[in-house]
């Protein structure tokens, strides 16, 4: 349980800092930390495969991509004059509204949980081996698997096309 609280605290704290930081590089790095905590949670949930690919794919690939883009664009710091003084929840316009809505959302979700009244205890040992997952992927979910590969192909092509530098006439 202590592990759970530890990992949970790290994840929440890191996420909060992600959205609180002004420097995008810091945000990315903090998010990596958050992913790490989540990976630990997956291990606690007897899902080693997911934990590992979380690190490899998310933290290792996607976040690195974000880092590359941030550094490529040389993203400037966000405007500071207003931000420093004002709490995020008090900033004007959709920001304030969105923030309040997020709080409302949390409350609602918790309320849903209370209403659902899950017993909560986990049952017997879960199925967790990589072999089992692999077998399921290539039999029951084979179609989704293949379609996903097409999806990745499309994403690759799209990203290349979109980011291409236009020829200037």
């Amino acid at each position: 349980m202590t592990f759970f609280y530890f990992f949970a605290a790290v994840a929440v704290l890191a996420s909060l800092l992600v959205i609180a930081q002004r420097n995008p590089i810091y945000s990315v790095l903090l998010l990596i930390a958050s992913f790490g905590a989540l990976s630990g949670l997956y291990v606690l949930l007897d899902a080693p495969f997911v934990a590992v690919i979380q690190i490899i794919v998310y933290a290792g690939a996607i976040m690195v991509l974000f880092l590359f883009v941030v550094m490529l664009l040389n993203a400037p710091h966000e405007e500071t004059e207003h931000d420093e003084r004002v709490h995020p929840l008090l900033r004007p316009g959709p920001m304030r509204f969105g923030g309040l809505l997020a709080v409302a959302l949390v409350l609602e979700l918790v309320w849903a949980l209370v209403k659902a009244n899950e017993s909560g205890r986990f049952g017997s040992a879960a199925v967790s081996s990589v072999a089992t997952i692999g077998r399921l992927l290539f039999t029951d979910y084979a179609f989704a698997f293949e379609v996903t590969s097409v999806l990745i192909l499309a994403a690759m092509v799209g990203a290349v096309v979109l980011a291409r530098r236009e020829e200037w006439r």
Partner: protein
Amino acid sequence: MPSPSLNDYLVLSAILFAIGVAGVFVRRNVITILLSIEIMLNAVNLTFVAFGRALGSADGQIIVFFVMTVAAAEAAVGLAIVINLFRHKESLNPDTFTELRW
């Protein structure tokens, strides 16, 4: 100490999701907004795995596998679009991109 229950995981995931949502609205940097979306997706992943474990099947993990793949693709394409936008306007503030208005 008792092991964590399903409710604990679900509450955690709800909190993480709300943080991601708040991030979308509060930040003024498009890239950070995309990061917040990743937070949301991760919260969802956690929910799936928790339920998979509670129901004793591997389906939760399979879904997470696909979610991650899609998230990767979406991040790639989204970042490409952000690069394009930056080239046009030299700014990463989403409030500057308001041409499609009345």
